[in-house]
C-alpha cells in the first residue's frame, strides 16, 4: 500500500538554478495556500491577501515597521546560518536574544548615569556578550561532554525567559509601576537613534547591514569561513585536513549567540525601551526559517528577513482589519518552511517521468 510510487533520479550535479528558484516556488505556494485559507475563513481572498502582503507597505510608518521587525530576524538568522552551514544546530537563538536583552537592560538600568555617553554602546556590547555567554554553554557542553547542542540550546531558552521574569518580579521591577512585571523605562539618551522621524526603525538597521556584509566576507573570503563550510559539508574531509571540530563548534555558537544577543539588546534599547517579560514574539525561532529560506546566504537572509517581517505585519493587519487571528503569521511561517524543504528535493533529484532517459552510446 505504501509502495514507492515516486521514482527519483539523483542529479549528477545539484541544480544551481533550482537552488535559487526553490525559495520563490515556496513563497508562491505559500501565497496560494493563503488564498485557500482566506477563502475558507469566508473572506474575499484577493482583498485579504492585499491587506496581508501589500497594505502594510504603503505608508512610511509601515516601511519603518518592516525594517524594525526584519532587523532582529536578520541578525539572528545571519549567525544561525553560519552554524547551520557547519552542521552546528543552534536553535536557542530566542534564549540568547532574551539574555542579550537582560544584560543590556541591566547596564541601561543601573550603570547608565555612571557611564554617561558610553552607556548606549556599552549596553549593546553587554547584550552581545550576554548572548555569546548563553551560547557558550551549549558550545562547552558539546565540545567537552558531547551533548547535543540542539537540546541544550533549546532548554536554555526556557531558562533565560524564566530568569528574565524572575528579575522583573524581583529587584528589577519598576517601583512606580503598579506591580507590573516590567522595569523602569530607560532614559531617552539611552535609546538607539531613529533612522528618520515618523516611524520606529533605528540604527540597528545599520548594524544589521554591516554584519550581513561581514558575514559574507567571512564565509566567502576568509579561510576560517571555508574551514567551517568544509566541516559542515564533509566532516571526514575536514578531519583529514586537520580542521578542528571544536573550533568550528565554538565559533559557530559564539557568533550566532552574539548576533542574537545584539538583536535582543537592540529590541530593548529601541522600540521597547525597557525590560518586560516578553521581549520577542519568537524572532529567534522564526530566524531559523529566515536562515533556510535565505539559502544560508547573507543576501538571501536579508530578503527572507524582510519577507518574514512582512508576515508579522500582515498578520497584525488582518487582525486589525478583518478580525482574523494574528496566529495566521505562525501558520504562514511554518507552511513556508515546509514548502521550501519539499521544493529542495528537486535540487538533488529529478522526476524522470518528465523526460525520457537519454541513451548515450
Amino acid at each position, binding site marked *: 500500500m*505504501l509502495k*514507492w510510487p*515516486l*521514482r*527519483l*533520479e*539523483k542529479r549528477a550535479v545539484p541544480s544551481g538554478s533550482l537552488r535559487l528558484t526553490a525559495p520563490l516556488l515556496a513563497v508562491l505556494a505559500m501565497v496560494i495556500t493563503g488564498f485557500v485559507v482566506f477563502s475558507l475563513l469566508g473572506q474575499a481572498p484577493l482583498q485579504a491577501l492585499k491587506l496581508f502582503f501589500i497594505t502594510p507597505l504603503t505608508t512610511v510608518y509601515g516601511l519603518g515597521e518592516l525594517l524594525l521587525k526584519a532587523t532582529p530576524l536578520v541578525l539572528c538568522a545571519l549567525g544561525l546560518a553560519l552554524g547551520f552551514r557547519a552542521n552546528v*544546530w543552534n*536553535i536557542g537563538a530566542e534564549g540568547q536574544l532574551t539574555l542579550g536583552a537582560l544584560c543590556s537592560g541591566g547596564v541601561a538600568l543601573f550603570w547608565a548615569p555612571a557611564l554617561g555617553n558610553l552607556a548606549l554602546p556599552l549596553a549593546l556590547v553587554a547584550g552581545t556578550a550576554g548572548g555569546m555567554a548563553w551560547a557558550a*554553554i551549549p558550545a562547552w*557542553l558539546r565540545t567537552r*561532554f*558531547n*551533548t*547535543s547542542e*540542539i*537540546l*541544550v540550546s*533549546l*532548554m*536554555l*531558552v*526556557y*531558562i533565560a525567559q*524564566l*530568569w528574565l*521574569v*524572575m528579575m522583573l*518580579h*524581583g529587584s528589577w521591577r519598576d517601583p512606580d509601576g503598579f506591580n507590573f512585571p516590567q522595569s523602569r523605562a530607560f532614559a531617552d539618551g539611552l535609546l538607539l537613534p531613529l533612522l528618520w522621524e515618523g516611524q520606529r526603525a533605528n540604527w540597528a538597521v545599520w548594524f544589521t547591514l554591516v554584519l550581513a556584509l561581514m558575514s559574507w566576507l567571512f564565509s566567502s573570503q576568509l579561510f576560517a569561513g571555508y574551514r567551517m563550510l568544509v566541516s559542515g559539508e564533509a566532516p571526514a574531509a575536514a578531519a583529514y585536513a586537520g580542521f578542528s571540530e571544536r573550533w568550528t563548534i565554538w565559533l559557530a555558537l559564539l557568533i550566532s549567540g552574539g548576533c542574537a544577543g545584539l538583536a535582543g539588546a537592540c529590541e530593548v534599547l529601541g522600540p521597547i525601551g525597557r525590560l518586560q517579560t516578553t521581549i520577542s514574539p519568537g524572532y529567534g*525561532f*522564526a530566524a*531559523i*526559517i529566515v536562515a*533556510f529560506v535565505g539559502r544560508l546566504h547573507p543576501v538571501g537572509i536579508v530578503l527572507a528577513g524582510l519577507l518574514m517581517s512582512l508576515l508579522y505585519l500582515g498578520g497584525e493587519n488582518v487582525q486589525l482589519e478583518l478580525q482574523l*487571528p494574528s*496566529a*495566521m*503569521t*505562525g*501558520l*504562514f*511561517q*511554518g*507552511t513556508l*518552511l*515546509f514548502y521550501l*524543504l*519539499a521544493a*529542495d*528535493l528537486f535540487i*538533488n*533529484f529529478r522526476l524522470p517521468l518528465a523526460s525520457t532517459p537519454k541513451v548515450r552510446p
Partner: protein
Amino acid sequence: MSSDLFIAIFTSTIVAATPLVYAALGELVVERAGVLNLGVEGMMLIGALAAFAVNASTGHTGLAYMAAALAAALLALLFAILTLSLQANQVATGLALTLFGLGLSAFLGRNLAGMPAVTLQPLALPWLRDLPLIGPLLFRFDAAVYGSLLLYWAISHFLRNTRAGLRLRAVGESATVAHSLGQPVMRIRYAATLFGGLTSGLAGAYLSTALTPMWVEGMSSGRGWIALALVVFATWRPARVLLGAYLFGGMTVLQLHSQALGLHVPSEALSMLPYIATIVVLVLICRNPKTILLNQPASLGRNFHPDA
C-alpha cells in the same frame, strides 16, 4: 513528611510524568527505526488542541484521545513524506514541524482559550481504590496513566521479543543492509514515524484533558523537547524512559508542593528545574562517548532512499 503529603507528591509526579512517558516512548520507537523527528513539541500541541476541542464539544474523552492521536499522526505523516519520500533534512524538517504545529494550533485554537472542559476522571476500580495507603497511591489514577504503563510494556515486548521489532531495529542500525536483505525500509520507517505521531498526540491529549484541562497557546512548554532528551537519557531503552519520565515528573511538581515542603525559592527558579535537569542529565549520559556510540541506532537521522 506526612503520608498525605507523600501521597500527593507521588501521585502528582506520576500524573506530570505521563505525557512525557507517551511522547518519549513513541519517539524511542521512531529513533530505533533510524528516524529523528524533532517535531514532537509541535505534534503534542496539535494533539492537545484536537483533544481539547473534541472534549469541549462532545464531552467524550475517549473520542478526544482518538482525535488527538489522529491529528498528530497526520502531522507525522507530513514529516514522513518530507523526510522519507522527499529526502528533506530530518533536523530541519523536525524544526519546521514544531514551528508549524505551534502556529497551526494557535491559529485553530484561537476561540477555545478560556473555555471550560471536562477533566479526565479517575478510573472507578472497586475496592482496590479503598485499600489503605496503596489505594490512594496506586489505584486512583485515570485510564491514561494505566494506558501509559501498558504502552511501555507493549513497546518493550515488541522491540525485544517480536520479529517485527527486530526488523525495525535492523532498519535503524543500517537501512542499507536491511534494504539489501529485502526489508521494506520505507514502509517500516513510515509506520514507526506515524506511531510516534500517534503517541505524541496522546501525550498532548493528556496535557489538555487531565494535567491542565484547558487550552493555552504553546501549552506544552518544552515537554516535547524534554521527551526527546529523555530518549537520549534512556540510551534508547524503554525501561529507562519510564524511569527518566518519573524523575522529571517529580521535578515539575516540586513547584506545586514547595509551600508544603517549606521551600522558599522564587517560583520561576523552581520552574527552571526541569530544564536545568535536562541539561545535567544529558551531560551525565553523553560524557562517555561510548555510551552513545554503543546505544544510539547507527543510522539515526540519516536519510535513505532505495532509488538513490
